[in-house]
């Protein structure tokens, strides 16, 4: 029941130019409430798409659809040409940093290894050597080899997020789905984690879907933005979406987007939504 092993050291080369991820007229509704409808999005291999929007705008729901945990109410979703299913190896998932119990009996390398085969049945006694090679390579790629054998709960938030990136990439996915991975990290670690994700994107043409409510740490990497607000959305390049006109329309209230020393500051979105300061 071992996962198909490609080359253990080098990520697989993506051959085709077909989109890594595509949504067609996608709709999600719960009962009579529609979260979003008519969502069309193609993400090319190697493309970086940021998903922005206030709480409750359906970002998490989109993540669940892409992970195969929730079916669309209408429309179609494809990842690497296939309908996503639970535990699909085509998708890697980086969650937000969360405090772990310091006495949790789990090492960094176990955390990464679970990303590779934690969903499979059996003890996984066969193929242990190949597994170790892959886990070691993933750890080395994020600079985590030094603390691979330390209890995960005793590592710093930044170190844990590096391991999270390794955990998501060890299965060599086509799409990297990042769900607020920088939340509660300091600036230096935010940079490290973004750099690791970007390195992978360039080296292996992995498409990146980056859910965040703070655009600035990833601003230099973003190809396009999907901005969701209360069922309305806009897709486009940064300078097409992050404008006072577009965001005012999405939020249905007056919003100003101001560029300050290469950073974007959104002013005036109501408390219910999105209120960023230049932190």
């Amino acid at each position, binding site marked *: 029941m071992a996962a198909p092993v490609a080359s253990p050291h080098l990520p697989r080369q993506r051959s085709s130019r077909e989109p890594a991820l595509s949504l067609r007229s996608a709709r999600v509704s719960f009962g009579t409430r529609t979260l979003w409808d008519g969502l069309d999005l193609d993400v090319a291999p190697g493309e970086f798409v940021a998903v922005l929007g206030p709480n409750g705008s359906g970002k998490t729901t989109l993540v669940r659809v892409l992970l195969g*945990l929730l079916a669309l109410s209408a429309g179609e979703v494809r990842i690497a040409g296939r309908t996503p299913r639970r535990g699909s190896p085509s998708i890697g998932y980086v969650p937000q940093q969360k405090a772990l119990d310091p006495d949790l009996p789990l090492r960094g390398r176990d955390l990464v290894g679970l990303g590779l085969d934690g969903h499979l049945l059996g003890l996984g006694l066969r193929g242990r050597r190949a597994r170790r090679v892959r886990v070691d390579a993933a750890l080395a790629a994020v600079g985590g080899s030094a603390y691979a054998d330390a209890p995960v709960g005793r590592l710093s938030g930044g170190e844990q997020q590096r391991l999270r990136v390794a955990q998501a990439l060890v299965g060599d996915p086509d799409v990297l789905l990042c769900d607020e991975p920088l939340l509660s990290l300091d600036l230096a670690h935010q940079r490290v984690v973004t750099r690791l994700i970007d390195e992978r994107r360039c080296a292996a043409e992995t498409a990146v879907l980056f859910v965040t409510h703070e655009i600035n740490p990833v601003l230099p990497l973003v190809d396009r933005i999907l901005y969701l607000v209360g069922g309305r959305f806009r897709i486009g390049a940064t300078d097409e979406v992050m404008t006072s006109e577009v965001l005012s329309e999405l939020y249905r209230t007056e919003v100003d987007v101001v560029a300050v020393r290469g950073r974007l500051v959104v002013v005036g979105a109501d408390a219910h939504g999105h209120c960023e300061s230049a932190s």
Partner: protein
Amino acid sequence: MKDLLDRLLTFEGLGELLAQPFVQNALIACAVLGLVAGLLAPLIVSRGMAFAVHGTAELAFTGGAAALLTGIGVGIGAVAGAVVAGLVFGFLGLRQRERDSVIGVVLAFGLGLGVLLLGLYSGRASNKFGLLTGSIVSVDSTNLVVLGVIAVLVTAVLAVLYRPLLFASTDPDVALARGVPVRFLSLLFAVLIGLTTALAVPIVGAILVLSVMITPGAAAARVTANPLMATILAVLLAEVALIGGTVLSLAPALPISGYVAVIAFLGYLGCRLVARFRRPRIAAA
């Protein structure tokens, strides 16, 4: 003081006692229980389920007491009570705060009900006392068969589902994202705990189930973060506590649970000491 120690640690006639069939049954039962409890203990600790195990044990006691009163086998009653408790706690899901208070509520009710049932029971007093503190006489050959079957069952389930269980126990959010059926596994694990607890209750007693189901795992987690090593260590500790406790309790003719609890606790202290000397304390970030 010395008299007391002599009373507690005596080996008079130990050889003859060890030759008794009921003692041998008890030793086999302890070995099997130690294996299963040791396998589960690190996962229980990872899931933060110590209190749930305690609650399960109290409901096994209630089930056992009900069975005693109605004349069904105590073992069957204990299994039924523990599995019901396991399912109730499993359905409560993963929210720690809610789970803790519900376990407290159910535990108190179960314990009260059990005491009432025992009060209504007019049979031998040692039967009553045995449920709470355990007794090796309670292990006969029928129990051994039940114990063996359940041990094989639990081990087989673990062999098939170990990786998803470890994933769901240590990293539930990502496990869920990776398609691991976290909720189902939580229920299943609760049933495994229920079955194992029910086996432990007649031997170590409802009150001291924690010393074989938690202490070995908690001790192992102090000295290693490697899940495989933690499991091996927990099994070893559980075996030493159970078999050692049984042997020591024979000659003084005292309940085995006290001996088991003390040995397990000493093992835990030892592991903490080893951890302290081996790695400098890292401030949790």
